[in-house]
C-alpha cells in the first residue's frame, strides 16, 4: 500500500511541480536517491561507510561521457560501461582496504575520493581538467512512441525524470532484495560480530568486497545518468564535499530504514536548493549548522526517529 502511494507520488511529481526549475530538482533528487540507496547497501547493513562515493560517481560520469564523445557509443552501452568502471574501481580499492579495520577503510574511501577529484583536475589531456567536458550527448534509447513522448531522446525533463525515477525505483528494489537475501544476512552478521561470522564459516571479506563493488557500480551508473542529463561535467561536481553530502543524506534519512534513501535526498536537496536561492553564502552557513543540529538531535536519522516514536505510541 505504502509502496503504491510512493509510486503514484513519483509518477505524479513532474505534473504537480511543473516549472523547469522544479523538474530539474526532481531529476537531481532521483539521481541522489540512486546514490544514497547504493551507500545504504553498505551503511544500512554492514555499517560500512564510504566517504568517496562522489568520486566513484565521477569515474562513471567521465567514462560514459568520454565514450559517448569520442566513440559515439550509444547511451545504454555507455551506462553499462560506467557501472563497470565504477565497480572495477571499487574492486581495486575495496579488495585491499576491506581487510583493514573499519575506520581505516572509511579513511581510504575518503582519501581515494579526493585523489579522484585531483586526478579529474590534473589529467587535462583526458578530462580537460577544471574546464570540464562540454557537449555530452543527451541520453537516447530506441523505444516505441507513447503519445507525445517519443522516449527516443530524453531531452525533455519529464521524459528524463521518468528514466531516472525508474532507475531509482529499480535500485531501491535491488537494495531490498539484496538486504533480505544471503548477502544482507551475511553483512548484518559482519556488523554485529565479525569474528563470530568468520568462525561460523561466512567468507566475510568476500561479502564485504561484493557489497562494495555493487555499491560503487551503482554509483558509476548514477554518474552516467548525471552526465547525459547535465551534458557538462567538471571536477567540481565530484568533490569530497559531495561525497559527504551523500553520507549526510543517508544519515539524516535514516540508515538501514526502507524509506531512508528516499527521505534523505528529498529533504536535503530541497533544503539546500531553497537556501541557495536565498543566498549562497548563508546557505552554506545554515547547512553547516543544520549538520551539527542533525547529529545532536537526530542521531538515527529522520526515519529512525519516526520509527522509534511510533514504537513508543503503541
Amino acid at each position: 500500500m505504502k509502496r503504491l502511494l510512493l509510486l503514484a507520488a513519483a509518477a505524479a511529481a513532474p505534473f504537480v511541480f511543473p516549472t523547469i526549475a522544479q523538474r530539474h530538482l526532481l531529476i537531481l533528487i532521483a539521481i541522489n536517491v540512486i546514490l544514497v540507496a547504493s551507500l545504504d547497501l553498505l551503511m544500512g547493513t554492514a555499517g560500512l561507510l564510504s566517504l568517496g562515493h562522489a568520486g566513484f560517481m565521477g569515474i562513471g560520469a567521465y567514462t560514459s561521457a568520454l565514450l559517448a564523445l569520442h566513440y559515439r557509443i550509444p547511451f545504454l552501452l555507455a551506462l553499462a560501461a560506467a557501472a563497470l568502471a565504477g565497480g572495477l574501481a571499487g574492486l581495486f580499492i575495496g579488495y585491499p582496504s576491506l581487510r583493514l579495520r573499519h575506520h581505516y577503510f572509511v579513511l581510504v574511501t575518503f582519501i581515494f575520493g579526493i585523489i579522484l577529484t585531483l586526478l579529474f583536475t590534473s589529467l587535462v589531456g583526458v578530462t580537460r581538467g577544471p574546464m570540464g567536458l562540454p557537449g555530452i550527448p543527451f541520453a537516447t534509447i530506441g523505444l516505441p512512441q507513447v503519445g507525445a513522448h517519443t522516449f527516443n531522446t530524453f531531452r525533455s525533463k519529464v521524459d528524463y525524470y521518468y528514466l531516472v525515477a525508474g532507475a531509482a525505483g529499480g535500485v531501491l528494489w535491488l537494495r531490498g532484495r539484496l538486504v533480505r537475501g544471503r548477502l544482507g544476512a551475511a553483512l548484518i552478521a559482519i556488523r554485529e560480530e565479525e569474528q563470530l561470522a568468520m568462525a561460523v564459516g561466512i567468507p566475510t571479506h568476500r561479502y564485504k568486497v561484493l557489497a562494495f563493488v555493487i555499491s560503487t557500480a551503482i554509483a558509476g551508473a548514477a554518474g552516467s545518468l548525471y552526465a547525459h542529463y547535465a551534458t557538462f561535467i567538471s571536477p567540481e561536481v565530484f568533490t569530497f564535499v559531495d561525497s559527504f553530502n551523500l553520507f549526510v543524506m543517508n544519515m539524516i534519512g535514516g540508515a538501514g530504514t526502507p524509506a531512508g534513501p528516499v527521505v534523505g535526498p528529498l529533504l536535503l536537496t530541497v533544503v539546500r536548493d531553497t537556501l541557495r536561492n536565498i543566498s549562497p553564502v548563508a546557505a552554506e552557513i545554515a547547512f553547516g549548522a543544520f549538520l551539527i543540529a542533525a547529529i545532536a538531535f537526530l542521531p538515527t536519522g529522520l526515519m529512525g526517529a519516526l520509527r522509534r516514536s511510533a514504537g513508543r505510541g503503541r
Partner: protein
Amino acid sequence: MGLVTLLQYLVNGAFVSSVYALMALGLTLIFGVMQIADFAQGALYMLGAYVSFYITNRAGLSYFLSLPAAMVGVALIAVLNHLAVYRPLRRAGGATSFVAALGILLILQNIALWVFGADYRLIRSPFGDGKAVVLGAVITHQQLFIVLVTAGLILAVWLFLQRTRPGKALRAMSQNRDAAALVGINPDRIAVMTFALAGALAGSAGALVSPLRAFDPHIGALAILKSFAIVIFGGMGSISGALLGALIVGLAETLTAAYVAAEYSDLVAFILMILVLFLRPQGLRGAAAP
C-alpha cells in the same frame, strides 16, 4: 640537474614542511586526546592568515605583532568550537564528530567569505626581498623566519609536553583516558587546553605563510586534507610521526613539482597515505594498530 638545484628544492620544501608540521601537530594532539578528526582546523589556519592580514595591512601594525595575535585569537575560536560543538556531542562518538567538524568548517569558511570577501590577499613581508645564500641555494628571509619560528614552536610544545605538569597530563590522557581520569586528571580541562594549543599552532601556520602565498577563505580545505593525510601517514596520535610525515610530504611535494609536474604535487600526500595504509596501517610511527 645540479646538486645546487636539488639543494634549492630542499630549501623550498623545508618551508612547505614547516606549515604542514604546525597543522599536523595540532591535529594529532587533538586526535590523541579526544579521538576527533578536527577538520575545522583548516578554517582556523585560514583565520590565522586573516588576523595577520588585518593587523599588518589594515591596522598598519608590525607583522611580528600579528603572529602572537593570530595565535591567541585562533586559540580562542578553537576552544569555542570545542565548548559549543564537540563537548555537547562527545557521547555521540564515531562518524558524528567527523560530520560536526565539517559543519564547523563550512560555517567558518562561509562566515569568512561573507566578512572578508572572496578576493585574494597577500601580506607585505617585513623582510622585503631580503635573501640569504647558503651553499649556492637562495633562501628568502621570510622563508628562513618561517622555518626558525616553526622549529621554536615545535621545541616549545615538546618542552611543554615533557616537562610541565599539564603537558604530562595531556600525554597521559592521550595514552589512556580512563587511567588518567583515575589518577585525578580532569579530562575537561585537558580537552580545553589541547584545543587551545592546536588552535594556536594552526593560527601561527596561517600567519606565518600569509606573506608568501596569496590566500582566500577557501585555502583551509586542501591544507587540512593534506595535514590529515600526513597525520595518518605518520601514525594517528603520534607526535614524532606527524613531524616526520610533514617533513617527508613537504619535501616530496616540492620534488614532485620540480621533477615530475606541478599539477601532481597535490596528490603526493594522499598517495603516500594510501600506501602506508596498505603496507603499515598504524602509520610510520604509530603504535600497534589501535
